[in-house]
């Protein structure tokens, strides 16, 4: 690698098939693909179609003992694992790709490994940083960077080694829209500057289209080449959702249901600014509301969440939007009864109160799960058991349901979400989309009246997206109050009945 530059690489796959050990089904079959030097190709496909397997094969990451590979796959005429010095990789998790504490040192890492003399290293580091549009200098600590900036740095670290083939595996899947934009901008600059052969693997095709020469889709039984000018169908196209229950069809208002104006007068610190926090436009019973609720971490001066009013009504979806750093996730934690607000209050309706206590953060966990279901951004943080079935039974059992009831509920959810074939599988072994569905299912297992979700559609493919949206619409139709924190414009457009923008000036 030092000294000479063999230029962009050529990729050739003929009849490639891969089967993982211990699995009966082939993860990838009959893949034929030729990528000429300097070509830029987007590889798309639904979650579980084999995109990741194809990426691992191209990157030479398949362990011959853990995977059966047939057919032919060559990078510049060599098997991928022998051509690894020709590869530059960019993967999903920025924190699992940076090594050093300073930006320049991290870019230099790959050049040190190649045994380059220090005098040659720094000019190449500076050139790679320039090619990705890095503006912060070499000494910038890597720790405090945003996800998008981290990915940009990882890309520079790959480019510094002058790879013939750049492989990007869903490089924006863990980033918010501005971060994803930053990464695509860096990739665009880099491929223009270097002319490197580029393969991007991503289920979300649209944003990459201006950057690539052609698009192939991984499907069962091989690759499909999309014609020039192809555009993906909008994921909400043709989606038929159960509508929100109209107020007219409500059960007759029971005495326990309070409307916002009555509520304000009964709230514990009522009186001040009476009624001013009522934002909800239509007369649906409010089941959970925050009144001037804000949060500051101990020892900090700027609040993580400025005082915010939100009212969650039964049978309505409320979207919480706004740029990063405005406290969207913190608001979700307050509404979910996981943190106590440091100013203002979060109060549930009387009908949800536990022995007169209306503040969710004071409830015992067993009482909380039957009232408010919460879905975190990373499904793995919430998994507690080694089997899907146990995972779904846990909530009902914890909240005092009998084991027969819990089992029936788990079966029903497994069936409903198409997870029945995996009932005895470990949740960690599921695909990203399956994990997301499972984490929503665990929250629904206790039939809570309120559902709080943090970025539920993050990094999900179109199929999973439609399933999630349908599932949430069903919950709404059944009278659940749904609150979702999201960056996802499409989700807000098709589902939200009300929305709270934390970025907007009060």
């Amino acid at each position, binding site marked *: 690698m030092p000294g000479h530059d063999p230029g962009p690489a050529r990729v050739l796959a003929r009849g490639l098939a891969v089967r993982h050990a211990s699995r009966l089904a082939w993860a990838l079959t009959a893949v034929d693909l030729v990528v000429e030097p300097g070509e830029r190709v987007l590889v798309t496909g639904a979650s579980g179609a084999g995109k990741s397997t194809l990426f691992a094969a191209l*990157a030479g*990451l398949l362990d011959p003992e853990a995977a059966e590979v047939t057919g032919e796959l060559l990078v510049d005429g060599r098997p991928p694992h022998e051509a*690894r*010095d020709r*590869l*530059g*990789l960019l*993967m999903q*998790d920025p*924190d*699992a*790709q940076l*090594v*050093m*504490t*300073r930006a320049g*040192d991290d870019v*230099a*890492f*790959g*050049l*040190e*490994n*190649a*045994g*380059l003399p*220090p005098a040659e*290293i*720094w000019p190449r*580091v500076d050139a790679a940083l320039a090619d990705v549009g890095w503006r912060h200098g070499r*000494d910038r*600590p*890597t*720790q*405090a960077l945003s996800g998008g900036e981290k990915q940009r740095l*990882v890309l520079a670290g*790959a480019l510094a*080694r002058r790879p013939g083939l750049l492989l990007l595996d869903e490089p924006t899947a863990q980033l918010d829209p501005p971060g994803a934009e930053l990464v695509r901008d860096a990739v665009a600059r880099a491929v223009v500057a270097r002319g490197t052969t580029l393969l991007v693997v991503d289920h979300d095709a649209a944003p990459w289209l201006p950057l690539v020469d052609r698009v192939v889709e991984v499907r069962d039984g091989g690759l499909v080449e999309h014609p020039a000018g192809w555009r993906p169908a909008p994921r909400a196209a043709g989606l038929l959702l159960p509508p929100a229950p109209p107020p007219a069809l409500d059960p007759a208002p029971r005495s326990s249901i309070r409307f916002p104006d009555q509520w304000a007068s009964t709230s514990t610190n009522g009186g001040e600014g009476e009624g001013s926090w009522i934002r909800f436009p239509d007369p649906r019973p409010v089941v959970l509301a925050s009144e001037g609720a804000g949060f500051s971490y101990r020892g900090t001066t700027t609040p993580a969440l400025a005082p915010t009013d939100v009212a969650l009504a039964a049978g309505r979806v409320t979207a919480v939007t706004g740029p990063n750093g405005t406290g969207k996730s913190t608001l979700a*934690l307050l509404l*979910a*009864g*996981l943190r106590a607000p440091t100013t203002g209050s979060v109060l549930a309706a009387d009908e949800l109160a536990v022995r007169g206590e209306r503040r969710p953060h004071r409830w015992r*966990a*067993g009482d*909380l*799960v039957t009232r408010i279901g*919460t879905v*975190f951004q*990373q499904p*793995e*943080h*919430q*998994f*507690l058991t080694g089997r899907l079935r146990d995972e779904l039974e*846990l*909530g009902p059992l*914890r909240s005092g349901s009998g084991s027969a009831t819990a089992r029936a509920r788990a079966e029903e959810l497994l069936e409903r979400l198409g997870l029945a074939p995996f009932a005895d599988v470990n949740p*960690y072994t599921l695909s990203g989309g399956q994990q997301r569905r499972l984490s929503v299912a665990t*929250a629904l297992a*206790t039939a809570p009246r309120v559902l709080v979700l943090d970025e539920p559609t993050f990094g999900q493919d179109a199929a999973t997206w439609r399933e999630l949206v349908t599932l949430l619409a069903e919950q709404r139709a059944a009278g659940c109050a749904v609150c979702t924190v999201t960056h996802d414009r499409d989700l807000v457009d098709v589902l939200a009945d009300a929305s709270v923008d934390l970025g907007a000036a009060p």
Partner: protein
Amino acid sequence: MTASLALGPTPDVPLSRINPCAQILAAVVVSLVLLATLDVVTPAVVVAAELCLLPAAGLTHPRTLLLRTWPLLLGAGTLAVVNLVLGDAGVLGALGIALRVVGLALPGVLLVASTDPVRLADALTVHWRFPPRVAVGSLAALRLVPLLVTEFETVRLARRTRGVEAGRNPVARARLVAGVAFTLLVGAVRRAGRLATAMDARGFDSGIRRTNARGSVLHARDHVFVAAAVVVAAAAVTTSVLAGTWAPLFVGG
């Protein structure tokens, strides 16, 4: 709370100009003397010399100093009290034990306060031929520690959403912490696997002899620093012998 765990680049302080290898060597020199004697004068002289270096390591503010050393001070204090109450060391003996612990640990505090982990790894690989697998691998692992701290809180909250909570029961609380720790461990192992893949992809440990872009140079001041440590050690022993308190550990006396 996470401030002491923030493993970013260390701010430049005067002591940063001393090569980490020289600092480690100096620490070994004074440690040998501290381990060789049981009296109170020797560790007192060593600790006094070490305290003189605190400003050079940027540890001038009592609060930052306390933040970095409280576990050490607590440990030393406990040891002294235990020896005073249960042993036959007497007040001076107990004080000597506490001073020895402080004297042994302070060089570590100084090193951490003044040395960027990357510079330490550079020095170890360049001068002492540490395998890069170990030195650079540790650096990569260190980056993940602050992430674990933030994830701990997330996982704890996530358990509450599943109906799992300890309440006031200390046994349940211990089990919960163990469960959270296990979840974190699983996550950390998976992330470490991905990190190893990423490092492999950039040619780490591929059989080519690794170079060092930053380098690590031993200056005259580094030799002076180690020599000064020898002088301090000698002065401590001399003072102790002259004061008649010298009580060597390994000589039957």
